């Protein structure tokens, strides 16, 4: 998959920018705050229907304008192209996502059609943050592999919200109506079992990719590991078995749930264990090791998606090199040079010096106050 070009109209600080990406590496160069990341965000909108930053769509609208437009041409490995456009109107708070002029029935059905892997400072939570950051990471990978997974996940989240409301109502009333609660318990256990099982299976497959990617980024000195940490079920199990345990736990923790007014059991409480030489990565102090692990996870994600989808994802790298020494930067650049289309932001173009040769395959753009200018190579 490659994005041949993208147009940003009234998007962040871009009034009207047009960029033609190369099939290899496209570097977006410039100082901070000039609009480099916005270009990556625009590609994210085309692929994931939203930004990879946790910000509301409306925040991407350029100040003083009624809405933004992002258009792009996505070309798959077989050479067939799709025109994708996203328009957002501030007043109506309406987002219109179209592929070749057609609106998919649901946005969830569009996610994964044009696979993309993003590495941005936003991802630092995967190794350094809480369980929510790590769940988000694997949920996004799985959503791009399976539309069914994404749909079950969205149904699960809605079920948790419905159930939480009942728990809050029960807390206010000081009593619980078991008959009203039962259907939500049953739905939660059933959907929760399916999600947990899928995540287990995924991490089994994904583990090999992580071990392999980590070796190529860091060399052979450290041994990483990754596994699923289920909050209620210690061993692997089938969906039905997990559902049964979830149901038991829901009954057992009923009083506590009412007191807290929220659902305390289910895959939204699970975690992913990331280890380095047998020690949880969160306990490592070194920024370099965190970043190495993160890059390895993303390279693994890229290779996993490529294998599953029979299509190389587009790789978006935002501000990756800032905390890394020269040697690791070079390793990463040599690694990503073989990963298909890569769009990367950087403040200092010297990091590319020894690894990338600029031509029509690998291109440079200068981004300055919302304007993108291609560097003409000699």
């Amino acid at each position: 998959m490659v994005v041949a070009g993208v147009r940003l109209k009234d998007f962040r600080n871009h009034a009207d920018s047009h960029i033609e990406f190369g099939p290899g590496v496209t570097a977006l160069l410039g100082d901070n705050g000039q609009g480099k990341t916005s270009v990556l965000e625009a590609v994210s909108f085309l692929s994931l229907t939203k930004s990879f930053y946790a910000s509301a769509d409306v925040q991407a609208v350029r100040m003083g304008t009624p809405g933004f437009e992002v258009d792009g041409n996505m070309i798959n490995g077989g050479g067939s192209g799709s025109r994708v456009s996203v328009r957002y109107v501030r007043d109506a708070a309406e987002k219109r996502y179209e592929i070749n002029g057609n609106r998919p029935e649901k946005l969830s059905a569009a996610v994964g059609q044009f696979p993309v892997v993003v590495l941005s400072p936003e991802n630092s939570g995967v190794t350094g943050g809480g369980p929510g950051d790590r769940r988000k990471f694997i949920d996004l990978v799985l959503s791009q592999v399976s539309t069914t997974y994404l749909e079950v996940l969205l149904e699960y989240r809605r079920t948790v919200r419905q159930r939480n409301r009942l728990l809050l109502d029960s807390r206010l009333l000081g009593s619980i109506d078991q008959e009203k609660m039962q259907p939500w318990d049953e739905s939660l256990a059933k959907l929760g079992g399916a999600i947990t099982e899928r995540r287990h299976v995924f991490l089994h497959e994904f583990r090999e990719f992580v071990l392999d990617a980590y070796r190529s980024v860091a060399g052979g000195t450290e041994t990483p590991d990754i596994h699923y940490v289920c909050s209620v079920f210690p061993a692997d199990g089938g969906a039905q078995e997990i559902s049964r345990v979830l149901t038991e736990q829901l009954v057992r923790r009923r009083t506590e749930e009412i007191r807290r007014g929220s659902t305390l059991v289910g895959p939204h409480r699970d975690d992913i264990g990331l280890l380095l030489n047998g020690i949880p990565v969160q306990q490592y102090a070194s920024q370099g090791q965190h970043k190495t692990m993160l890059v390895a996870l993303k390279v693994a994600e890229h290779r996993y998606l490529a294998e599953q989808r029979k299509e190389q994802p587009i790789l978006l790298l935002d501000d990756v090199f800032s905390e890394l020494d020269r040697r690791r930067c070079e390793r990463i650049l040599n690694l990503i040079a073989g990963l298909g289309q890569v769009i990367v932001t950087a403040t200092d173009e010297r990091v590319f010096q020894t690894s990338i040769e600029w031509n029509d395959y690998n291109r440079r753009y200068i981004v300055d106050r919302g304007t993108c200018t291609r560097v003409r190579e000699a």
Partner: protein
Amino acid sequence: MLHTSEALEQLISEFTRLPGIGRKTAQRLALFIMKRPRDEVVTMARALVNVKDKIRACSICCNITEQDPCAICASPKRDRSLICVVEEPSDVLALEKTNEFRGLYHVLGGALSPLDGVGPDELKVKELLARISAEVTEIILAMNPNVEGEATTIYLGRLLKPLGVRVSRIARGLPVGGDLEFADEATLSRALEGRITL
């Protein structure tokens, strides 16, 4: 911007109450109506009031109707041993279009949704229970294939099964998260045929 006519301004603000209508569209509709002949507008206004005055709920199935009982409940041709439970009157329309189902309906008036303050008491559940008699052999639950429809199906299933009636649900051949109303006829027919006993 406000218009110089208070009457026009009022019509615009009434239109903005309609689902999916913003101020701009409301303005366009209001200006359109202003330009139509008077008798056409009177007919339209009367149609609006008639909807409120003439339509009521069927005392048997709770569907909207002008005569009570409704045409379906009153028809001698319908199979009175089957009751298909749906969320909204529009679902009855969708299922009738398939020409597949010959039984009776029961319109719940929605689905369980604590977030919207809808519990069993807000739905026509008591009315459904009151209809269970020796004559009824099967209840088919045909809720929308979403989270709320699923919870409603589970709830009704547990409520109805002890009453000795066969309870089934339509097969989930429908797109997940979709509405019954928007499913095509072939899909609905298949879903009805492939129903699963609870």
